[in-house]
């Protein structure tokens, strides 16, 4: 293990926050098994680890959402007990959770000040709240979001910004961010980093969780690595080589690369054919084709209409014009069952609200679109369901393997794998993937890429949306650049690079 020396220049300061020997047992699972973490004022402390390593659990212990089974938490060298989330805030610890935790029915301002409403004599000070909300949103680079907008109407990225704004509204000394960038595109991430730098300059400490190495390089100061609920690397400098970090995280060396393209023969039949598809207010006149064995990527900014395009293809929204055909047969507009029957599958963007039945067992989530098929005359065949679920768990390295537990108890990345597994079980001719690697760790990512490529090689037509441009470029055969609801360019993936994509996106939104 590399020396657990302190990063240069930070040795003098005493830690602001120290967690020692934190242990957390859940019924049937040991999530944390002795984790240490110390965070200095004004630093960005990155927390790394595979899916299910215990990162989210650790920060939930810190934020008072979970009670540790053992271990101590010290703030300013004084031991504290954080019995509930309000106590954490009182100690100056604010948290942005991995899963969006906004209330859809409330406005932006109400969400941001939820739990610490500004009020005199029981009456909320609406104007003051709105003013401060605008102020925070401006700092985050989003003056266009109205404080009075209902949060349910914002796209995923907008919700993430509201969640960020909420953490900022607390004047915290430690802000914990659990995979904040998962829903954001590169521009947004830049905004986030700017705010993070402002905060650290004021002495605020940030605990930052992400599976994206480039981000850790960009803003991280020190790194703590978790593996299977234990600290395996303490206070490493942010310059630690990626290979070394991955080895620490996984206990072995992993090749982080995209699978080789195998090339699509020219005579491969067009499986998905979209002509002039429009949805008022979201996108316009989208035409694209995906051939059997081809992976097509939609690149663009969050909010450019890519998710809406996928959802419309899938029948989850009803187009205002245009047609979608699968293998030459036209799909009934606005009908998900019709799309599924034609062999189309969608792994949606928001896994919690669109993908999962949280209280149900893992295997039932995996077989959610196939249980009726395995059933015999309406009678479920749960043994067969468990069997295919276990196969997928094995293939995707789902952790833990136990498919009978409620899916709510899985880590975020593992939940994502379960959603993918559903369509792998289903076996699709057309697979629509919306941010398929969101929250998935480095090792599992390469595996997912390999899997997508393998599916394509078996003749599946794949359409991928991702906010990580390198991912789209690395994975797809052909890329369509979407800007403001229009396809502004299309090219083979090898003939285009990240800068060109960004340029196109910008031009598109100006035009």
């Amino acid at each position, binding site marked *: 293990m590399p020396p657990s020396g302190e990063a240069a220049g930070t040795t003098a300061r005493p830690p602001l926050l120290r967690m020692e020997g934190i242990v957390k047992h859940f019924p049937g699972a040991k999530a944390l098994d002795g984790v240490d973490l110390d965070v200095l004022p004004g630093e960005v402390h990155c927390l790394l680890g595979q899916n299910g390593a215990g990162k989210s659990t650790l920060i939930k212990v810190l934020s008072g959402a979970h009670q540790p089974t053992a271990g101590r938490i010290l703030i300013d060298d004084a031991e504290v007990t954080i019995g509930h989330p309000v106590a954490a805030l009182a100690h100056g610890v604010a948290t942005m959770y991995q899963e969006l935790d906004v209330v859809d029915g409330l406005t932006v301002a109400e969400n941001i000040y939820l739990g610490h409403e500004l009020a005199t004599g029981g009456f909320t000070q609406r104007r003051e709240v709105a003013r401060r909300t605008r102020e925070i949103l401006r700092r985050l680079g989003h003056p266009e979001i109205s404080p009075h907008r209902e949060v349910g109407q914002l796209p995923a990225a907008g919700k993430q910004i509201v969640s960020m704004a909420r953490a900022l509204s607390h004047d915290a000394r430690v802000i914990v961010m659990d995979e904040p960038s998962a829903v954001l595109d590169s521009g947004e991430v830049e905004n986030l980093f700017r705010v993070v730098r402002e905060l650290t300059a004021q002495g605020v400490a940030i605990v930052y969780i992400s599976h994206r190495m480039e981000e850790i390089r960009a803003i991280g100061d020190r790194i703590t690595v978790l593996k299977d609920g234990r600290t395996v690397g303490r206070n490493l400098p942010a310059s630690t080589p990626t290979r070394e970090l991955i080895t620490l995280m996984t*206990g072995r060396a992993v090749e982080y690369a995209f699978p080789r393209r195998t090339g699509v023969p020219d005579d491969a039949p067009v499986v998905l054919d979209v002509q002039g598809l429009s949805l008022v207010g979201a996108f316009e006149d989208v035409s694209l084709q995906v051939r059997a064995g081809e992976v097509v990527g939609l690149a663009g900014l969050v909010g450019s209409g890519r998710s809406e395009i996928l959802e419309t293809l899938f029948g989850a929204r009803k187009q205002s014009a245009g047609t979608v055909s699968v293998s030459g047969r036209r799909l009934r507009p606005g009908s998900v069952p019709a799309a599924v029957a034609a062999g189309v599958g969608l792994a949606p963007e928001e896994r919690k609200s669109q993908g999962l039945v949280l209280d149900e067992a893992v295997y039932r989530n995996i077989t959610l679109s196939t249980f009726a098929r395995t059933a015999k005359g309406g009678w479920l065949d749960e043994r067969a369901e468990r069997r295919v679920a276990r196969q997928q768990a094995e293939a995707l390295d789902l952790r833990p393997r136990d498919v009978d537990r409620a899916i709510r108890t899985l880590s975020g990345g593992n939940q994502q794998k379960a959603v993918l597994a559903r369509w792998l079980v289903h076996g699709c001719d057309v697979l629509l993937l919306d941010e398929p690697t969101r929250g998935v760790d480095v090792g599992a990512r390469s595996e997912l890429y390999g899997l997508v490529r393998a599916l394509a090689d078996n003749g599946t037509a794949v359409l991928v949306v991702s906010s990580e441009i390198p991912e789209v470029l690395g994975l797809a055969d052909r890329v369509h650049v979407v800007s403001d609801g229009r396809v502004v360019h299309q090219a083979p993936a090898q003939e285009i690079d990240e800068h060109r994509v960004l340029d196109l996106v910008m031009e598109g939104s100006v035009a």
Partner: protein
Amino acid sequence: MSASTAAPPADESTERRSWLSGPAGRNVGLVVALALICVAGVITGGERFADIDNVVTILRAAAVTGVVAIGMTFVIISGGIDLSVGSVLGLTGVWATTVATQTMAEDLHWLVMVVTALAVGVGAGLVNGVIIAYGRVVPFIATLAMLASARGLAEMISNRQTQRVDVAGFTDFFDLDPLGVPMLIWIFALVAVAGWFLLNRTTFGRRTVAVGGNAEAARLAGIKVKRHTLYIYGLSGLAAGIGGVMMLGRTTAGTSTNGVLLELDVIAAVVVGGTLLAGGRGTIVGTVFGVLIFNTLTNIFVINNMSTSAQSVAKGVIIVAAVLLQQRFANRSRST
């Protein structure tokens, strides 16, 4: 990834999961509650409570509520509510005992009355379902409207008169008691068992839980959520129809006041039985226990000659107490 990263083997995490976390565990609170009530019954009522005839009385009284509650369990698990069951039950009884229906039953077979009642129940349920699923009216409002309309229709049909059952075959059937157990109890048992299989062993049940747990995820997985919602309300109407027939069997008369306020007893029993009002979780066994708890309690009050007002107060207390107990056990068995 490779096995060298030591993924915990599946059984490691299952081993410490006690029986408490199983479906049986979730009902422990209910068993305890029912046991306590029975103890109270024995203490206050002695021989009169702990008598086989009295047990039969309790079950017979519980049967109608029980059957309707089985249907309601599906509705509530799917995330809905059906306030119209009491009125629909009344309507089915009235419709099945009109002169026209009874004359036809005399001519053909007494089952004509049963089929009529069931058809009316399913029909009313489907109307609820269409309004809710396709009209996008919230279940509370749609079924509240049905509650009013069905009752009104029953009054119009019966002219607010009591309609005696004159078909001998019908009354004879409900006088049967195979193995010493009255017909009503048999029907309740049969419906409960069928309900259990339907919920736990069929695609219908799986869809119900999925729709209640996350309707959007279910829809995006290709489940026909609207059609399923329609079926669920149809099922609840069917249960109300069966309840209506049973009520005729018990009282040998159809009146428009049959089943007034039944919906409250039914919903209370389902919720006390551990079904989440928010949907996504619930059990048939829990519902059966919920029904038994209420009816045993009522029985104890009757034995001890207590006023109906006192009964109502006690009912309220029981609802809260049972739900609290239920949560206590549920929390212990569920991971936080």
